[in-house]
């Protein structure tokens, strides 16, 4: 009543097979171009932000943080948007690509939210003397950060993958509505106190400062895209590695049989 084990493969064969099946990296010509462009844009941003653009009349050099803070905050929302849309699509189509996209969006959004909080906090110090002002945007961002941490915690649970993805998708679907509600209520709340507003996108901003800000948007956009592509690909590979090889699983299951010869059952494809 013994089941025979499959013959051991030749030592080199397994490695070669695995190498062929697994790409060495998530990079591709597209991402290399993207990465290069991001580097160039960042260099330009540093140039414009630190050197070329002038210090602000009121806020002196700390205004330079705005060139990072504002784009970071913007792409934070873009990331959340990706997560919500991808979650909705996953619930409809159930293809793993959407699940991977939702995960990537949330993680990158978290990175950007930390940057936003960090730059906002640093700005507050010289301007108002404290590291934290209960500014509307900063407070909303803090709450959003907590939501993203919660979402990622849910994703990391030990659970059957389909169930985990379903729960994460429902949570992700609610992310953008939550953000909208939180932002509105916090803004409304803070508007009752004529307090300090950290970043007023001053409509009169012009000249090299405007250019610097635009460069900031471009640079962060490229960085965001680069990060998203890589993170998505990693998540995608994760899904595939975890994925169900039904034939192998069936073979393993049938091999558990105790009968002398496991009966062959017609498997209709």
């Amino acid at each position, binding site marked *: 009543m013994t089941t025979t084990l499959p013959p051991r493969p030749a030592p080199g064969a397994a490695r070669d097979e695995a190498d062929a099946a697994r790409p060495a990296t998530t990079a591709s010509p597209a991402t290399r171009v993207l990465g290069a462009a991001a580097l160039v844009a960042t260099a330009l941003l540093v140039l414009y932000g630190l050197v070329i653009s002038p210090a602000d009349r009121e806020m002196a050099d700390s205004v330079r943080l705005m060139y990072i803070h504002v784009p970071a905050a913007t792409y934070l929302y873009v990331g959340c948007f990706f997560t919500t849309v991808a979650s909705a699509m996953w619930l409809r189509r159930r293809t793993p690509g959407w699940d991977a996209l939702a995960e990537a969006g949330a993680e990158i959004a978290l990175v950007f939210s930390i940057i936003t909080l960090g730059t906002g906090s640093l700005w507050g110090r010289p301007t108002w003397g404290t590291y934290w002002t209960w500014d509307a945007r900063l407070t909303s961002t803090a709450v959003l950060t907590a939501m993203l941490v919660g979402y990622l915690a849910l994703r990391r649970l030990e659970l*059957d*993958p*389909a*169930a985990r993805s379903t729960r994460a998708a429902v949570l992700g679907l609610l992310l953008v509505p939550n953000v909208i509600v939180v932002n509105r209520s916090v803004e409304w709340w803070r508007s009752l106190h004529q307090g300090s507003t950290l970043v007023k996108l001053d409509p009169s901003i012009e000249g090299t400062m405007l250019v610097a800000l635009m460069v900031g948007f471009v640079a962060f956009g490229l960085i965001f895209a680069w990060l998203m592509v890589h993170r998505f690909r990693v998540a995608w590979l994760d899904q595939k590695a975890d994925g*169900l090889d*039904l034939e192998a*699983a*069936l073979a393993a*299951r*049938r*091999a*558990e*049989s*105790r*009968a*002398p*010869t*496991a*009966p062959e*059952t*017609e*498997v*209709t*494809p």
Partner: protein
Amino acid sequence: MEPIVHFRAAVALLGRFPALAGIDLDVMRGEIVLLRGPNGAGKTTVLRACAGLVPVVRGEATVLGHDLRRNAAGVRRRVALLGHASALYDELTVADNVTFWGRACRARPDDIAAALQLVGLDGRLRDVRVGRLSAGQRRRAALACLLARRPELWLLDEPHADLDHEARDLLDRLIRQAVDQGATVIMSSHDLDRALALAHRIVTLDAGMTADQRAAGTGPGTPAEALRGDGEATTETTAEVSHVA
């Protein structure tokens, strides 16, 4: 005559584990079918699949005319599952529990009352909290919930466990009664003597597949005896299965 349950090479997944790796099963109306096999063979999963609770991803699977691969949820109202885990709330009384589950599946109040009576829980025990009952009494309460549904297909997962001798007799009686009234029963049980006496047919499962289907005798000294030696059942191809008419 159309079989009530028809499985052909059915594969069902619990998460990513193929609990059923190719089940063949045909059950006619009014039959009592016993599922047997070692632990982990897939008996519970077959029962849950018939209830439309487990997704079938390959092969054919039809229960009471519902294609389980397309619309598993449609079959749920017409079956009842008596599983290992009870769905009874410890803080509520027997009457509360049976009434809740009865009303949830739109059972008539008469049926609910009759169910309690049939299992013998309509007396003093009616208003005792389920948490205070013995395992056997809880089983009987769960059975009452099943009876109240008046299902066409009974799916019983080791129903004789936890029951004393009298209660097992009661259960057997109820099963026979239900079958006389047109229901069909699929059950798994480790109480082989009883189950073999009840069953019309025996299906042996192994590693998620159907290993054997044969008719059961109705007394000792029949093929039933031969089956008691576990693991020594001869493998018959499905072509040689004889169905009890």
